[in-house]
């Protein structure tokens, strides 16, 4: 990717991200969701695009992060079982200090626990290739939602509510807006960095030919575990933030939305172009904007439209927007014949 091009994009995005909640206060929630979507697409692409392990169950870490966060936010100051049986925050009040301490630790721990979960689960699914991996991870995400729905301690099917924000509604939405924006930026910057290190090369090698990578002595299991953990870390954090934005965590629709957010991740990345840094960002922005603008006009057909979009995307436009650009203008991406004289 051209450095100049990257920089020209960074600055306007940063300005837009900071100014947006003040310019479009009515769209604040939608734009915050947009940053979550960008984060989703970027993290899905670590596995699906850069490493060639197409996970259909990355949403698992979203739920893990969400539950971890609320458990830490509540568990530090109150008994979880009592809290869940009292159905929520009204009977339990937290002081300002308690709330913010809980939130900070909750967010950090949600990432850490999600990453650890990924590392542990990786041990059980990394022997699976291609479609088996996709189906295995899909199974994990569904199982997690189902099991959470039966676990009384965390509120089972009726869910658990997050602690009530001590300030006003405006401050609350502004705070979480900037937290999601920050999380998306952090994800982007981290990925931009790791793709430039040896890690980027190694996961690409695994994508192109894992057997060859093994035969060349690359620590494939280690790279795969770390890749999934990085992905899970950020998804976990987004889960913590989203849970706090929603207010109530319910296992099937909010925490483990396998067929909504779980599929959006894949659809957005494919739309933008997998295996590139900007593709997922582009895909997420396009997808989310289109969705927000058109969703209500579909009159109940929006899910059908989503399915059709996935099919068309996969069948006719697999390379995505960035992939198409790279095919069209290879020299812009540094794919050129260079002889010795020219470089010296």
């Amino acid at each position, binding site marked *: 990717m051209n450095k100049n091009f990257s920089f020209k994009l960074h600055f306007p995005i940063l300005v837009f991200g900071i100014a947006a909640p003040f310019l479009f206060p009515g769209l604040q929630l939608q734009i915050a969701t947009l940053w979550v979507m960008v984060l989703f697409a970027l993290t899905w692409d670590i596995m699906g695009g850069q490493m060639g392990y197409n996970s259909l169950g990355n949403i698992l870490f979203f739920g893990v992060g969400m539950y971890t966060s609320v458990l830490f936010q509540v568990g530090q100051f109150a008994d979880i079982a009592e809290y869940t049986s009292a159905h929520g925050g009204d009977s339990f009040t937290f002081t300002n200090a308690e709330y913010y301490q809980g939130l900070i630790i909750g967010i950090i721990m949600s990432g850490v626990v999600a990453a650890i979960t990924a590392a542990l689960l990786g041990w059980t699914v990394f022997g699976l290739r291609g479609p088996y991996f996709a189906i295995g991870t899909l199974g994990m995400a569904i199982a997690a939602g189902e099991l959470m729905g039966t676990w009384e301690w965390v509120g089972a099917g009726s869910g658990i509510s997050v602690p009530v924000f001590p300030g006003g509604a405006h401050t609350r939405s502004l705070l979480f807006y900037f937290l999601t924006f920050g999380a998306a930026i952090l994800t982007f910057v981290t990925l931009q960095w790791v793709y430039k290190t*040896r890690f980027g*090369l190694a996961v*690409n090698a695994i994508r192109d030919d894992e057997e060859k*990578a093994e*035969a060349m*002595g690359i620590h494939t299991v280690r790279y795969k575990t770390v890749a999934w953990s990085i992905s899970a870390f950020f998804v976990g954090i987004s889960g913590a933030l989203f849970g706090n934005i929603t207010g109530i965590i319910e296992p099937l629709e909010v925490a483990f939305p396998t067929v909504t957010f779980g599929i959006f991740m894949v659809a957005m990345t494919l739309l933008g172009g997998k295996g590139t840094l900007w593709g997922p960002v582009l895909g997420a922005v396009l997808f989310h904007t289109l969705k927000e603008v058109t969703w209500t006009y579909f009159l109940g057909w929006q899910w059908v439209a989503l399915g059709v979009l996935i099919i068309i995307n996969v069948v006719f436009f697999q390379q995505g927007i960035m992939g198409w650009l790279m095919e069209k203008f290879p020299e812009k991406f540094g794919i050129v014949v260079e002889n010795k004289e020219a470089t010296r």
Partner: protein
Amino acid sequence: MTNYIIEVEGVSKSYGGVVANKGISMKVPDGKITGLIGPNGSGKTTLFNSIVGYHPIDEGSIKFKGEEISTYRVPKIARLGLLRTFQQTRIYSNMNCIENMLISIPHRKMGFADMFGEREDKQTMEEVERLLDFVGLYEKRRLRSGDLSFGQQKLLEFAMALMNKPEVLLLDEPTAGINPTLINGLIDRLRRANEEFGITLFVIEHNMRVIMNMAESIYCLAHGEMLAHGSPDEIQNDQRVIDAYLGAH
């Protein structure tokens, strides 16, 4: 006293009743070029796969520098310094030549932090450019390796193997599918790899002219069993080998 770097002792391997290797014993001397020949289906690639850990063996022992490796898995064996190339050339086809080379550095002493290490440090880049120059791919270094011709991919795979600084390189039919006019250049490069970089070569080869020219000792397999062993001259004049190739068995 010759020093043997690979010692195969009584190795057998069968696939669902079909015996591919039966009681094979052989030794690869350190720093030399050793050849492995035999008619199609005689079990050459099976033996290669057994050595590099691609499948478990039924019985016998395989030692690399005196260490038993027959239970290790592929990446571990590769990190010990025993590397193989594939009959169907395998490269990372969506990456360019430089990236293919950069990720082929030795992974022997890679710690956890090295995963996020600088990948294009000056020394490594110099090595990459030198080796790409060595195989004649310097001009094409920024092209997608999957877009290279078959012969060029083969050369790239060879350069990647050298980049890994192996002690032994197992080459599965390095000249198969290569334009005959390029074969001499490849032989020359293989020899130089052996002489200049001190890499022991163990080569499966169908082209008799190539292997007779290159190898110092040759093993011949037939029907999964070790048929003969000797210098190129001995092998060429061995009646059993001639019979095996003419199918008089």
